[in-house]
């Protein structure tokens, strides 16, 4: 019986997941990103994405196995794949997505040892259009969901080995949990919530073990060490290993370079910083390129154009610019001396921390200058301009060099040092606000002098340093070791994530809309086949009902226990089984859902799917409880038939709803559902569904 049901579910899964997998034969939704990123692993080009690399590495691998040579451009959604082999990547993702069904089945089985609970859980994942649609395309969600549900399965399996502590299966499932956790985090950072779930579970287990007075404390310590090893140490190593592969594989310069620091870029073949050389120290008279050290910061730039009338003083513009250009070059000179010549024989003077300096823009020979006029966009900051003629300016050109955590009089070094430039008279720091200037500023970014000296964006470093009288050292001297690159990659990802803020007034998906399935997401909207990501409303709404039922049951049972009311042992066993499984699943749901309420980041509908995994499994358990206990209320004669009827009704309702909404997943070809002649017309149960 068990195997029959499991087998049937497997077959149904394979059938639904692979049916019409090659349709639509054009790029759907975010495939344009992840397909492209996967391709970069094949042609070894460095790129930047706000998510960790594992998911994209897997996509790259699937493509590679299918013989994809990463030549397709993945330009925008709707582009036809034509002859490029995209099926490998799709099939890989679909397999990972398909595994969710058996994994949920097995997880619930291990939690309750009830075949019907496991079957219902499997079916509600199997028949959900959201799960199906999301897991058929080249996206990060199939691997993410796979790793999350695998972690849960492994940890439940491990928990069931608790009577055989330190046996082989015990170790196996413990380390499998660790490995799967790494998988989820390394696909997307939201995978970290399942780590918390497993962590709570581990703490609860340890608390149990500690309470067992027949064992010495050292036994608990042993358990603790085993978990620390398999759930902390081993995953950390594995996680770093993934990044190591990521950084090793992507060694060619590519679109991601600009997000990283100068030192990081020296690693990338094809980047102009690769194998370049430059003097180590900065001396007066050097020709410098200054880069803003904030993530994605540009080069300090000026050009032969004045600020227009009405925007502060009518002096030469100073901006930041992200491209290499002759206008990024500045001479550094002492505040009271002209620029020393490169061929003079005067002793070389190094630039030191705390020095008063001027910077002279090489092409226009104007000095970097600031004065008490409001900056063009950020009106609370001061304007920064190029001022003076042939290098002669006034006292407002003087800046003090302050090296970040530098010793007094320490000489300034290329790349290695980060510094601030403090305006001597006004006591403000040279900074960039990253706000784009209007047309007159060629849409470059605003440079200001910020009176708040703690401005985090006011940090600069010397990227290029030319001075023939000092010996050049190779840039490889600045190379970062793996750990530094690992940490920098994380800093860049986090700041990238934090930067994904919705613009003012823009309509975004909010967490409260998700569980009620308020609004979906178009995967493919153009001509021809239309795909719309939307949950099966029957499953989603009943998930909510069952969750409410669980909470009520929990409250009622707690109060009854408290009041000492005794239920029949049969009833009690049934309740215990349902409640203990639901408890953990409910915590899992909370952990994967509630944190989104506090996120300021831009959110999407598909962020709900990890939580949906838990609520669907929970529904399985609750349905099982209901079909077992409702017939108990009936006279014994019709119990059996009532049971079968209930099961029949539920299962057929699920299958019918799946059939009804199936075109959402497999492609709608008729017009919008607002028109009465559309095949989807009757299915628009909520006005917010846009198909």
């Amino acid at each position: 019986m068990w195997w029959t049901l499991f087998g049937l579910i497997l077959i149904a899964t394979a059938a639904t997941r692979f049916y019409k997998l090659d349709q639509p034969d054009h790029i759907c939704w975010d495939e344009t990103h992840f397909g492209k990123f996967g391709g970069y692993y094949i042609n070894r080009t460095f790129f930047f994405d706000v998510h960790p690399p594992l998911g994209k590495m897997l996509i790259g691998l699937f493509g590679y196995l299918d013989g994809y040579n990463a030549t397709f451009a993945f330009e925008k959604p709707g582009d036809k794949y034509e002859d490029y082999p995209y099926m490998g990547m799709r099939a890989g993702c679909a397999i990972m997505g398909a595994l969710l069904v058996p994994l949920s089945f097995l997880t619930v089985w291990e939690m309750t040892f009830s075949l019907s609970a496991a079957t219902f859980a499997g079916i509600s994942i199997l028949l959900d259009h959201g799960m199906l649609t999301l897991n058929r395309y080249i996206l990060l969600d199939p691997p993410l969901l796979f790793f999350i549900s695998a972690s849960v399965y492994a940890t439940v399996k491990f928990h069931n080995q608790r009577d055989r502590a330190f046996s082989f299966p015990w170790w196996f499932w413990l380390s499998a949990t660790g490995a799967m956790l790494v998988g989820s985090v390394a696909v997307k950072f939201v995978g970290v919530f399942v780590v918390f779930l497993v962590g709570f579970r581990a703490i609860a287990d340890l608390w149990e073990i500690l309470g067992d007075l027949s064992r010495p404390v050292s036994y608990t310590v042993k358990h603790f060490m085993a978990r620390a090893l398999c759930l902390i140490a081993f995953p950390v190593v594995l996680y770093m290993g993934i990044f190591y592969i990521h950084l090793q594989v992507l060694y060619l310069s590519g679109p991601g370079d600009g997000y990283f620091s100068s030192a990081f870029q020296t690693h990338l073949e094809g980047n102009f910083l690769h194998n370049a050389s430059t003097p180590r120290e900065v001396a007066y008279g050097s020709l410098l390129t200054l880069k803003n050290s904030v993530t994605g910061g540009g080069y300090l730039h000026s050009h032969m154009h004045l600020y227009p009338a009405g925007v502060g003083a009518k002096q030469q513009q100073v901006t930041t610019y992200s491209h290499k250009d002759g206008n990024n070059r500045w001479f550094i000179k002492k505040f009271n001396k002209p620029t020393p010549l490169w061929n003079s024989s005067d002793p070389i003077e190094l630039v030191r921390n705390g020095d008063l300096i001027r910077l002279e823009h090489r092409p226009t020979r104007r000095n970097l200058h600031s004065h008490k006029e409001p900056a063009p966009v950020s009106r609370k900051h001061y304007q920064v301009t190029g001022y003076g003629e042939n290098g002669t300016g006034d006292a407002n050109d003087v800046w003090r060099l302050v090296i970040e955590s530098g010793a007094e009089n320490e000489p300034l070094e290329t790349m290695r040092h980060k510094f601030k430039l403090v305006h001597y008279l006004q006591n403000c720091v040279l900074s960039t606000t990253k706000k784009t200037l209007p047309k007159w500023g060629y849409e470059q970014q605003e440079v200001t002098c910020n009176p708040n000296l703690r401005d985090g964006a006011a940090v600069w470093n010397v990227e290029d340093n030319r001075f023939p009288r000092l010996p050049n050292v190779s840039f490889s001297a600045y190379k970062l070791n793996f750990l530094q690159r690992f940490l920098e990659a994380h800093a860049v990802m986090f700041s990238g994530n934090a930067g994904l803020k919705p613009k003012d007034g823009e309509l975004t998906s909010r967490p409260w809309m998700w569980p009620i399935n308020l609004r979906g997401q178009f995967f493919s909207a153009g001509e021809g086949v239309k795909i719309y990501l939307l949950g099966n409303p029957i499953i989603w709404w009943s998930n909510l009902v069952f969750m409410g039922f669980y909470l009520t049951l929990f409250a009622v049972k707690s109060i009854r226990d408290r009041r000492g009311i005794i239920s029949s042992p049969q009833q009690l066993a049934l309740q215990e089984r349902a409640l203990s499984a639901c408890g953990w699943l409910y915590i899992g749901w909370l952990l994967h859902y509630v944190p989104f309420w506090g996120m300021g980041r831009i959110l999407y509908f598909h962020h709900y799917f990890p939580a949906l995994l838990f609520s669907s499994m929970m529904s399985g358990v609750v349905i099982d409880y209901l079909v077992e206990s409702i017939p108990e209320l009936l006279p014994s004669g019709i119990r059996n038939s009532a049971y079968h009827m209930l099961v029949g009704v539920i299962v057929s309702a699920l299958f019918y709803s799946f059939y009804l909404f199936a075109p959402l997943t497999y492609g709608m070809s008729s017009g919008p559902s607002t028109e009465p002649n559309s095949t989807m017309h009757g299915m628009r149960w909520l006005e917010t569904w846009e198909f």
Partner: protein
Amino acid sequence: MLLFGVALATRFYALDQPNSIVFDELHYGRYAGLYQKQTFFFDSHPPLGKQLLALAGYLGGFQGDFKFDKIGSSYNASVPVFAMRSVPALTGSLLIPLVYMIMLQLNYSQWTAALAGFLFLFDNALLTQSHYMLMEPILLFFAMSGVLCVLKFRALERSGNAQAHSYSLRWWGWLLSGAIFLTCALCVKYVGVYSYLLGLALVGHDFWEKVLGNLSLSKKQVFGHACARFFAFFMVPLMVYVGVFYIHLSTLVNAGPHDSAMSSAFQASLEGGLSSIVRGQPLEVVHGSQVTLRHAHGSPCWLHSHAANYPVKYADKRGSSHQQQVTCYVAKDINNWWIIKRPNRTDLAVAAPLDRISHGEEVQLVHGITGRNLNSHNVAAPASPTKQEVSCYVDHNVSMPAQDVWRVEITNREEIGDVWHALESMVRLIHVNTSVALAFSGRLLPEWGHNQHEIVGDVMVNQPNTIFNVEEHRYTRNEDEKDRQLELMTTDFIPLEPVVMGFWEKFFELQIRMLFISNENVQNHMYTSSPWEWLVLTRGIAYWVSPESNAQIHLLGNIFVWYSATVALGVYCSLLIFYLLRQRRQCYDIHEEAWNQFRTTGEVLLVGYVFHFLPYFFVDHTLFLHHYLPALAFKLLLNAALVEHLYYLTRLVFAKQFFNWMCILIVLTWMSGILMVFNKFLPLSYGLGPMNASQILDLKLRETWDFIVHKP
């Protein structure tokens, strides 16, 4: 009493100095002034604290004539500074006896209770905050009173004959006053909700333990207890909260500076302001109505057009229709006027019988100044390429026909009826040819569109951004310049029934606006700080600086107190974990009595601290040091409690009297250290002066403290 005396002395010392606006007095003082003038204002915090300030001001003879323009400007004689500042000063002083009693209630000795009072008394941050017209002292006063009442209530619940005390006068008194005080805290600032939750948690916990777990009580009795608590902690707070807003709304009946944050109907219900504009304007929108259309939800703006076309090509190389721009403009402007007409009529003057427009009918909108029709077509909108462009139709003779008919959908016709009413009807304009809705996209147009808001045609009809309402409204009187029949028309004006909004309607609207509109715009304020920094007092806030010297007020805690409290927090948590682990192994290191006290302390103080501190990690808006003060209050109490517990442990471990004396000596040294630091930073708390630069720099113990040095 001694402590209270000192508290009063410190809190009231030089209360009217500096005689100028300090920090947020700018806002709170202004609001208090607006109360005197009964002028409506909008603030995202609830009104109770401001009402108290205003009451004090009223008693002090404040007329509300002073203009609070910027921090640092001097008050003139019309502002009763002393009276207004005495509200926070008094509540701030009352804190000290309150914490004293709380500690006693938690079964700590008088010495410990006095120590807690001492910590509160000599913390510079609490002193500074209590010295000016700020909300935190009032909030803390209510929160602490509430906690005290709840603790008193618990004491009754837990006493030997709880049964006898049930429903007694004292029982009800503590329960109700606890709930009321906690709600008051909530009505001062919304963060008071955490104090309320703490009270709720404590009462709920006791109910679970003592009532539900008490099997000698019958079902009926349990139910009665549940009802009593439900009444006290849900119904009473609701009444208090609504009552506070009732006073708020019934006091503020005049229109004021923040009206535009509210809906048109709300504004129309205020004296003056919008209601003076809309007075006498006709109610029903008809063929020939001249209207301004206000975007009804979110940021206020009005449908607008002007004599400029969309650029032929946008920056991203997309093309446009090059027809006249339609935008949403945030200011009142002559270009916001539109004339509503029927598609099949050409005359515009309104004539009897009135041709009323109702739900589902089709209309055209003619822009008043340029005379062009509101139009939309299948061209991508300028800033939101996925939406459809909306323009005023210009015939460029490029076979682009006018598609300028719109269908009126009134969304609230259940309440208002099918006929389109000015102000009240919430209207969607649906483009007849393409079924898109006229919508506000939230994006700004670039320079060519004068940075006004973009208006688009949106396929997604059912969303708040598509709803508009008529704000100003008049009937077109003359067909053209020559034809003036004004006098005839005026007789046809429908007398406006004054818009009366019931209290509940106003109340709910205000609640919604307060919850969803954050009117703060101080993202890059100099003195913001993050929750982690509060633990170690990384940054203060500059409140005021004297124009003559370096004398200044800087909100900064007593660093000695703050650090020891942070350490105490760590020690308490470690001890707690230690005891729990040991007890799990059935090892009981301390007496049951001591453990019970230790545990109760955790239930009240540690949980209180966590409730008031943790949420700040998940909020998105700008945070300042003074947000930490409620959490700090619990932390200081915990610190005092821990001192007694450590003293108990010393006595437990060491038998000798000598160690006890050592312990007391250490505490005394610690206290004198606190006094010294307090004294050292006193000038910054009061803004005593004059000070020179070196004196200021002398106080700069941490690199990150940004004092202002602007004079030598």
